[in-house]
């Protein structure tokens, strides 16, 4: 389907005046999704960077209805809001959640699973900056292999995070969810199309959007979109959809050899050895089910 694009998207803003760092990928993910969903989006944000930068009384930064949930409670609060608004006889609204990687893949996973199990009619968007950023860049289960964080520092014995990134799309899909997708703020048309599509499907929808964080990744603030593109082009992050019980890849690898450059432009990977980088290339290949030249 063709979704909104840079020319057709509304000029209205729903998330502005907030205190996110320059170049914040998460803020872009929230802003763009709300433009697609419009003024009747009811947003739920758990503890995390986006709620921390957007809701400081009296500086409240959402033009649509929005509420902070407990850290673990994004999905369960969305369920309650959806049930309550429906009970009021309303129908012209979309309940949407914006939770971080930690808030989704770690502490909020149980509530998300319950929500999908009930097939509540909501859109859950996980903006993934690959660590607990709001508390100062600690490791989450979506932190990639090798990354140094404040709890997986690059030491002389252990060099950063030793675990692979959790496969959240497959976890979510295993519930038999009506629609799930991955996206990247580097490919906004694709992201907007997926948000739009999600808004037209009944039941629970899940979108996992890669959203670089220059502060936590140790990258230039004008490199956010570039990095979000590179992660996709090199195959480290895949654009995919799960619908009607089937997975579909939306984009092939276009820059198989770009991994080194991608890693080297971020301080969190500065300590990686050639051996570490080879390991990252190999696991990328294993994920794609083939060896790339």
């Amino acid at each position: 389907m063709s979704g909104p694009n840079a020319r057709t998207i509304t000029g209205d803003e729903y998330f502005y005046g907030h205190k996110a760092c320059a170049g914040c990928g998460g803020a872009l993910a929230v802003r763009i999704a709300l433009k697609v969903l419009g003024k009747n989006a009811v947003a739920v944000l758990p503890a995390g960077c986006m709620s921390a930068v957007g809701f400081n009384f009296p500086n409240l930064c959402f033009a649509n209805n929005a509420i902070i949930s407990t850290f673990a409670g994004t999905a369960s609060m969305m369920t309650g809001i959806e049930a309550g608004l429906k009970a009021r006889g309303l129908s012209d609204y979309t309940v949407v959640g914006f939770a971080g990687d930690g808030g989704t893949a770690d502490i909020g996973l149980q509530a998300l699973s319950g929500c999908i199990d009930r097939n509540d009619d909501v859109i859950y968007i996980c903006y993934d900056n690959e660590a607990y950023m709001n508390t100062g860049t600690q490791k989450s289960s979506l932190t990639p292999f090798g990354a140094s964080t404040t709890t997986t520092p690059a030491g002389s014995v252990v060099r950063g995070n030793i675990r692979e990134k959790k496969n959240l799309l497959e976890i979510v899909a295993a519930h038999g969810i009506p629609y799930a997708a991955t996206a990247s703020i580097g490919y906004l048309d694709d992201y907007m199309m997926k948000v739009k599509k999600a808004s037209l499907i009944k039941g629970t929808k899940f979108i996992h959007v890669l959203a670089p964080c220059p502060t936590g990744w140790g990258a230039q603030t004008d490199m956010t979109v570039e990095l979000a593109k590179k992660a996709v082009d090199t195959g480290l992050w895949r654009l995919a959809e799960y619908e009607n019980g089937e997975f579909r890849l939306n984009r092939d690898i276009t820059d198989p050899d770009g991994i080194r450059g991608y890693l080297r432009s971020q301080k969190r990977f500065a300590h990686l050895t050639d051996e570490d980088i080879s390991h990252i290339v190999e696991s990328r290949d294993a994920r794609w089910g083939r060896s790339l030249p």
Partner: protein
Amino acid sequence: MTKAFVSGNEAFAQGIRLARPAVVSAYPITPQTVVVERLSEMVADGELDSNFIHVESEHSAMSCAIGASAAGVRVFTATSSQGLLYMAECLPYAAGGRFPIVMMNADRSVALPWNIYGDQSDSLSQISSGWIQFYAMNAQEALDMAIMSYRIAEDHRVSTPFMVNLDGFNLTHTYENVDVPDQEQVDSFLPPYSTTNKIDLEKPVNMGFTAGPAYNVLFKMSEHMGMLNARDVVPPVEDEFMRIFGRRYSGMVEGHLLEDAELVIVTLGCVSGLCMDVADRLREDGVKAGVLRIRYMRPFPDREVQSALLNAKAVCVLEKDVSFGNAGVVFSEIKSALYGSGCSCAICNRIAGLGGRDISFDDILAIFEELENRPTDVGFIGGSAS
């Protein structure tokens, strides 16, 4: 009005049915399960037009209840013990957001050691969470409070969540005769929930926000004042309840034979009834015994406690919990209310009924006998296991 022979849980479920919550979200735990089973049956049979949400935990039960309340509708949940503690993060959240959720808590022991039976350790550990806390004495009062709690919680001067505590098993599972009011009666007493504290598609709001050091105290103070306002709201609500349903309740506390009582047991929950029976017996022997039942632990009835105990010579606070390293929670609160009140009574604390241990007629008789010696210690009943 119809008569029914039901357990405390079932009586409460009847009251909730009549209060018509639009959303019920709950997770099972003994001894609360029956109330949610009955409610799901009522929804399944079309007796209750409500969305029953099968949440996957108590944390989600309360988070979901907060969401539904933020959406502007009446909501109910119920829990107990480990479940109450599992949702603990959400309790101040509901209170700080001023969401008038009603929750039934089946008072139960807290692990370790594991124990499914009744005591008051669970709810009394959450005394500062911002919830109104009520302790019911019998099934009829439980049913009536299921209805009255919404009136008080949803009053715009209060806007505070409301926890109705029923002693696990002793009350939740004991069968009693109750009067079940008619729907029309309840509808005339309890109007549909209306609030401005809600998601509004015409005029969007930002809710559940952050308030830093400069503003934080303003929100906390107004939460405190809202809870205190319940003290003024309870009496007229009870008057109206009396007019419509013909049952009279006594406000924040209930006194039994207190006019001239010298020896007084202060307690809460369903053991109060037994204490009153013992006091009646002692009166036959000329012993000036009395009972003060705390109905509301929050807001705390300090003025009522002060005047009720003004002429007492010896007081025992009998409760089913202990704040380890200090004393029973209720004892500490009563003692602090009496400071400077002019009461010169001796006051002691008896911690009893832990993990469902029976509190017998003779146990209470023994407390009254002890009071003649004006004890001031903190002691456990059953501490020397026999």
